[in-house]
């Protein structure tokens, strides 16, 4: 028997998944062709919210890159659209003129954004219309790209639709600096999944992030002629905004099947074998199909359907049946934890409801039990029992008599036991349908690293929320034989050595330049992205003897200023400890006038930022300022924030300004794995926020200084670890230097002190830096002294550029 031709229409998650399932079952009886209208490989649509929020890179969300198709012998017609199916001749026609024959046809056309009938959304003629500039549907990678581009110069987005996707879109755009308003028709957010009380608490959580919520608003028109300028609602009120995103639901793409004469209701109707009703050779899967009256818009049902379809079509299990899916979702909005499954509210009088509510902490949990089985649950603000409930819900297991243990772990030991006790069939990764048994057998088959197991089983590669549980299971299954992923410790991905080893090798072999390192350890093959990391390491090893190849520097370090979104630069002179003078301010004011600097900003580090300086003007600006660089652009020691201290403050216990100035004057510009921001507070009122700095000192009674390290108050917020209490300013100076040197030598590239402290541990750092357990204290002090000695104000290059075109943008041919 020759190969039967299998044609798959649609190359989204459903189409690609079903082909994968078929290939897994052998699938060599088929010659597989896929037709998809998106011009690239298949990607994880669930992660688009993360891409929008910037927490995930576009590249990271591709499930099947183009080589995957080639490697598996699948022919892909990307960028082509199927325009007709002839189910009697068994052919399909595409818009590029091709006619493809098939023995088996799978329709996986998915769905598209549904826009409510709202005036003013479209522009142009009805036949060739497009969305009004500024109006978006949120569905594809392309939508995501276009939204981000528009968001770059928009200030207020209205998201129509208060469901899962709408909230994720609003949070993502809020994080991109827009004001965000969610407009919802219902009287509560996520009305399909939540009861009133949960919805009210979710709303409070969302509003506390800064998202406005308008409920009971039916959108009637998008305003603005050239571009969107606002929305009008059915009640006559209006909202000003310069961007609108519709997240109002999806509609299955069924037109193709309907035109071909197949049975179509809301979706393409399939039976329990996933075959289209009354068709012998046509199947449908995913969001385009309707099964037992249900349409699904989530990913888990799609995986289950794909498995049944593959069993049937390959004959691997000719009796496989799909009986519908139970729905569970998690909201991917950073700062809000929410999981729902099944029913939002009881339906029958005998449904049993167990509920816990603690509004002040934003915690709300409810479970609905019918005949001893879990039929619905909502967890908001506390995910403690989520895996247990998901299992119970999916598998319909019998629940414990003591219902409160559905909501809380009472007294018993927690997670480790539960990993071991989970049944093998328990689904761990709900995005990719990976069970504990899959992970266990992958480990048994030799998988010993988290990354390896994730790549093989795909567990944790969807929304990522199960990653920690996957790690737990890998650890448990490996029974202590888990291997560290060696690459995880490499300093840069292109050279297989951890930092300490690379430093030693560079020292022993006398490698003083980045190109020499590539020549020695990477066959001379350079890696652009690794250059700044290597430059930093070599400068640490060699100090003044480092062979400074300028192409290894990031642009900021080439021109000693911070590049801005429009390609201009920001100039921040050093104002040690934030203490300035009339003279300095006058000079800065003159420079601003003379160079017509568009923005002058007081920074969070108590300095003055001159923004919008073209590269060509940098040398002149520096010369006219006559002040040294504040290093506000480098991976380096940046600034010391101080409070007024004992000079004027009536509470001050220690001279915080003097210590701050001495710190900054001593350690200025110091090369470091990531930026270092310091703070000194003159009393425990902590006005200069020293407890959330990379290194912070707080004066306490008795002329002593508490030293905090690893604090953060940026993207990450962490209170610093109290490392020790010191008796004098001299001691504070020395220990700051010793800690920073230890950090410089041991931290990974771009690893801030707050991650470094969590990785190494405060006890270990204290033992080495303060108690000198390993006897390296003196060496650290000497190394730090050498680095300080190598300091040279980079702004002196204004007079003698390091390279002829250092400060030019355009050069004459």
């Amino acid at each position, binding site marked *: 028997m020759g190969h039967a031709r299998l044609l798959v229409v649609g190359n989204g998650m459903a189409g690609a998944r079903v082909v994968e399932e078929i290939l897994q079952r052998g699938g060599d009886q088929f010659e597989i062709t896929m037709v998809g209208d998106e011009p690239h490989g298949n990607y994880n649509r669930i992660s688009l919210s993360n891409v929008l929020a910037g927490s995930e890179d*576009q*590249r990271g969300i591709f499930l099947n890159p183009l080589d995957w198709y080639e490697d598996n012998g699948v022919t892909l017609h990307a960028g082509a659209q199927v325009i007709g199916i002839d189910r009697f001749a068994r052919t399909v026609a595409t818009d590029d003129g091709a006619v493809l024959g098939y023995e088996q046809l799978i329709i996986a056309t998915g769905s598209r954004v549904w826009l409510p009938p709202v005036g003013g959304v479209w522009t142009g003629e009805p036949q060739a219309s497009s969305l009004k500039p500024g109006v978006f549907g949120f569905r594809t990678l392309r939508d995501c790209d276009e939204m981000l581009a528009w968001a770059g110069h928009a200030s207020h987005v209205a998201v129509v639709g208060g469901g899962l996707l709408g909230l994720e879109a609003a949070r993502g755009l809020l994080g991109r600096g827009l004001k965000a308003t969610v407009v919802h028709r219902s009287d509560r957010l996520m009305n399909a999944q939540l009861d009133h009380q949960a919805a009210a608490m979710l709303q409070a959580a969302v509003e506390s992030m800064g998202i406005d919520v308008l409920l009971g608003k039916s959108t009637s028109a998008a305003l603005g002629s050239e571009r969107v300028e606002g929305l009008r609602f059915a009640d006559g009120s209006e909202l000003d905004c310069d961007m609108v995103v519709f997240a109002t639901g999806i509609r299955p793409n069924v037109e193709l099947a309907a035109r071909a004469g197949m049975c179509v209701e809301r979706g393409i109707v399939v039976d329990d074998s996933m075959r289209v009703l009354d068709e012998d050779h046509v199947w449908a899967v995913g969001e385009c199909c309707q099964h037992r009256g249900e349409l699904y818009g989530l990913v888990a049902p799609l995986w289950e359907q794909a498995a049944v379809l593959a069993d049937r079509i390959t004959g691997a299990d000719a009796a496989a049946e799909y009986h519908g899916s139970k729905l569970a979702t998690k909201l991917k909005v950073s700062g809000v934890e929410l999981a729902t499954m099944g029913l939002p509210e009881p339906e029958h009088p005998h449904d049993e409801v167990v509920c816990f509510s603690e509004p002040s902490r934003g915690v709300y949990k409810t479970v609905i039990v019918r005949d001893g089985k879990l039929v619905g649950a909502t967890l908001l603000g506390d995910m403690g029992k989520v895996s247990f409930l998901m299992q119970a819900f999916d598998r319909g297991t019998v629940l414990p008599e003591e219902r409160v243990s559905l909501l809380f772990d009472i007294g018993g030991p927690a997670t480790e036991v539960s990993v071991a006790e989970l049944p093998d069939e328990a689904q761990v990764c709900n995005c990719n349908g990976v069970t504990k048994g899959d992970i266990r057998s992958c480990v048994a088959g030799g998988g010993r690293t988290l990354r390896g197991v994730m790549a093989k089983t795909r567990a944790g590669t969807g929304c990522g929320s199960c990653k920690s549980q996957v790690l737990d299971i890998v650890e448990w299954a490996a029974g202590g034989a888990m291997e560290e992923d060696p690459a995880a410790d490499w300093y840069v991905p292109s050279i297989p050595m951890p930092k300490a080893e690379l430093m030693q090798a560079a020292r022993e072999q006398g490698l003083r330049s980045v190109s020499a390192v590539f020549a020695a350890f990477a066959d001379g093959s350079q890696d*652009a*992205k690794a*250059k700044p990391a290597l430059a930093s390491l070599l400068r640490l090893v060699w100090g003044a003897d480092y062979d400074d190849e300028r192409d290894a520097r*990031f*642009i900021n370090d080439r021109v000693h200023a911070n590049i801005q979104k429009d390609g201009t630069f920001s100039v921040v002179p050093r104002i040690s400890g934030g203490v300035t003078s009339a003279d300095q301010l006058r000079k800065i004011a003159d420079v601003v006038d003379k160079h017509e600097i568009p923005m002058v900003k007081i920074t969070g580090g108590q300095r003055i930022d001159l923004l919008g300086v073209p590269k060509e003007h940098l040398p002149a600006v520096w010369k006219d300022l006559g002040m040294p660089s504040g290093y506000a652009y480098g991976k380096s020691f940046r600034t010391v924030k101080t409070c007024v201290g004992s000079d004027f403050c009536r509470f001050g216990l220690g001279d915080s300004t003097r210590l701050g100035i001495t710190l900054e004057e001593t350690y200025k510009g110091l090369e470091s794995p990531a930026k270092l921001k310091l703070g000194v507070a003159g009393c425990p009122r902590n006005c200069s926020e020293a407890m959330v700095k990379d290194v912070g000192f707080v004066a306490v009674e008795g002329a002593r200084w508490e030293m905090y390290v690893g604090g953060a108050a940026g993207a990450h917020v962490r209170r610093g670890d109290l490392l020790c209490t010191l008796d004098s300013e001299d001691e504070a100076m020395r220990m700051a230097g010793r800690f920073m040197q230890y950090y410089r030598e041991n931290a990974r590239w771009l690893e801030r002190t707050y991650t470094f402290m969590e990785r190494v541990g405060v006890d270990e750092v204290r033992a080495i830096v303060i108690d000198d357990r390993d006897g390296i204290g003196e060496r650290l002090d000497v190394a730090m002294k050498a680095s300080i000695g190598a300091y040279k104000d980079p702004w002196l290059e204004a007079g003698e550029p*390091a390279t002829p075109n250092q400060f030019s943008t355009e050069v004459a041919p």
Partner: protein
Amino acid sequence: MLRVDGHLVTVFHLRDGGVRATQPWCPHRAGPLADGLLDDDVVVCPLHGRTFSLDSGEAGPTEVGIATYTAQLDGDGTIVLTLPAAGSLPSCSDGVSAGEPPGPQAAAAPFSGGNEHHDQGGA
């Protein structure tokens, strides 16, 4: 970056002495590629780290690529660029890779100095 017959082109000097030429702006947010980090194969935009092949202009799987042009160094250190016909150079908004320039025309760009220090920041 240099201006040739009214077109802006960025010319990169590689460590191995070779030269490459591309459109000057990143198609993402118009970052100046001349300010990017460089190796033998790719240039990395300084604003958000998008990475482009210096030869083909290709970017990541979902990203728009950039136009690249043929650039050669002749014996006396002159850079010879082959650019598409006037008016057809892509702007930063439609940065498709121009593999086959329609109607080639040679533009001679004499180049002086700057080779020994590998400064990709200009020239």
